[in-house]
């Protein structure tokens, strides 16, 4: 008799010891129900990467889970603790549809006609800022000031898509856009002239010196070298070597050099060396 009572008590305890059965996979931001077994009152815990919820439930009934409780993607634990103990089950919440794109564009300034100089990286998120792990096409659009736009559709891998592209030949702002569905993130990169091309100087005698000036300074794509760029003039004469650094003003660099006897004058800007002129007479 005693043994029978003990068995009945054990069975009652097992019946009250509720199991929780969440779906194996849920989409972020969508409510659902977790079915339970057993009977009696229980405390229900939902533990997620970014949220913990607790409430009292009745075992044997479905537990509704609100959409606001499953905004964060990741692994969730559903735990029910009744009079017979606790039982738990894990399930995953996956990101919802792509809705936002986080876009990084580097550098902010780039020389024209440079290979792989523009780097674009886009992270694809759903509306709750969960990374969308399923492959999604990110449309990168490069829109230069002049010339045709460049389209680069790239499939994301575990939430990230990236590309490298050459800068275009003309200086000025270039817009780069990353698009995923309706989400669009524009960024602007400034293309600047490259090194001077065909750097040439000419000399003009003045009363007390020689005026040295460059031709209008442009890169090999015809972009004007920006004012302020330093041009170095070097004079070698009987007294030795003299170097004068001059910023470009209105597209031209100029300086006056006193010349004693025979002299050679050369010009350089950055890594570019220009022509050399020889002066025969002193002043």
């Amino acid at each position, binding site marked *: 008799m005693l043994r029978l009572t003990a068995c009945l008590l054990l069975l009652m305890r097992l019946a009250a010891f509720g199991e929780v059965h969440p779906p194996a996979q849920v989409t972020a931001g969508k409510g659902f129900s977790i079915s339970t077994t057993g009977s009696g009152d229980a405390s229900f*815990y939902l533990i997620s990467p970014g949220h913990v919820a*607790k409430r009292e439930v009745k075992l044997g009934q479905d537990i509704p889970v609100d959409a606001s409780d499953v905004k964060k993607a990741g692994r969730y634990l559903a*735990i029910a603790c009744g009079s017979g103990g606790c039982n738990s089950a894990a399930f995953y919440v996956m990101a919802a549809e792509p809705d936002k794109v986080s876009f*990084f564009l580097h550098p902010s300034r780039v020389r024209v006609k440079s290979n792989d100089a523009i780097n674009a*990286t886009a992270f694809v998120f759903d509306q709750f800022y969960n990374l969308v*792990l399923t492959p999604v096409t990110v449309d990168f659009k490069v829109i230069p000031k002049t010339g045709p736009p460049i389209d680069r559709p790239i499939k994301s891998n575990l939430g990230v898509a990236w590309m490298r592209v050459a800068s275009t030949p003309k200086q000025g702002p270039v817009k780069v856009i990353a698009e995923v569905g309706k989400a669009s993130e524009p960024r602007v990169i400034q293309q600047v002239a490259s090194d001077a091309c065909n750097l040439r100087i000419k000399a003009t005698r003045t009363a007390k010196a020689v005026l040295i000036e460059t031709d209008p300074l442009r890169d090999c794509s015809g972009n004007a070298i920006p004012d302020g760029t330093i041009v170095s003039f070097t004079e070698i004469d009987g007294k030795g070597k003299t170097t004068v650094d001059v910023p470009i003003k209105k597209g031209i660099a100029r300086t006056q050099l006193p010349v004693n006897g025979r002299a050679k004058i050369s010009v350089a800007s950055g890594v570019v060396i220009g022509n050399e002129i020889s002066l025969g007479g002193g002043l």
Partner: protein
Amino acid sequence: MISGLSRRLLRLVGLGLPIALASPLLLEVLAAGSLPQVQLSAGSIEPRPIEELTGTNVARDYAYAWRDLAQALDHNQADRLDAYFTGFAKDTFTQRISDQKTADVHVLYVDHGHKVKAFFYSPDGGEMQLLDKAQLEIQVYAGGKLIHQENAAQDYLVLMTPGADRWFVRSLEPIAGSSF
């Protein structure tokens, strides 16, 4: 009344403390031993290769981040996230700790190590994405009572970004193993 186990512990502390004080090297080893183990591989990383020193620093800082996360979730102290977490990751775990306090829950992670594969390093060096196969023992306590315990082989998708002197965890998302 001191039990046999307590007596053994006291003896160990009694022996260990003078040795530890006498040897700074041992202290370092003990300190290093308290960090979770992180093995980083970056053989197939793209588009930018990872420098050896960067790899060492990322592995070190990721280990520190997990140490801090485990302490923060166990003691419900969000300020422990300040040193190695930023952005979404910090916001997410701060919210969770706030919720844990409300529900009188705390979670203990016993960390058995991380096999981490770095697979994306942005061309400008501003972002690194990693996949972590973590071995964790997870214990959930409610009102001081153990309500759940499991040994979990959990995969994480991690986004780390460099700061002035360290790498920060910007996103740490547990994902299903089939995701990669």
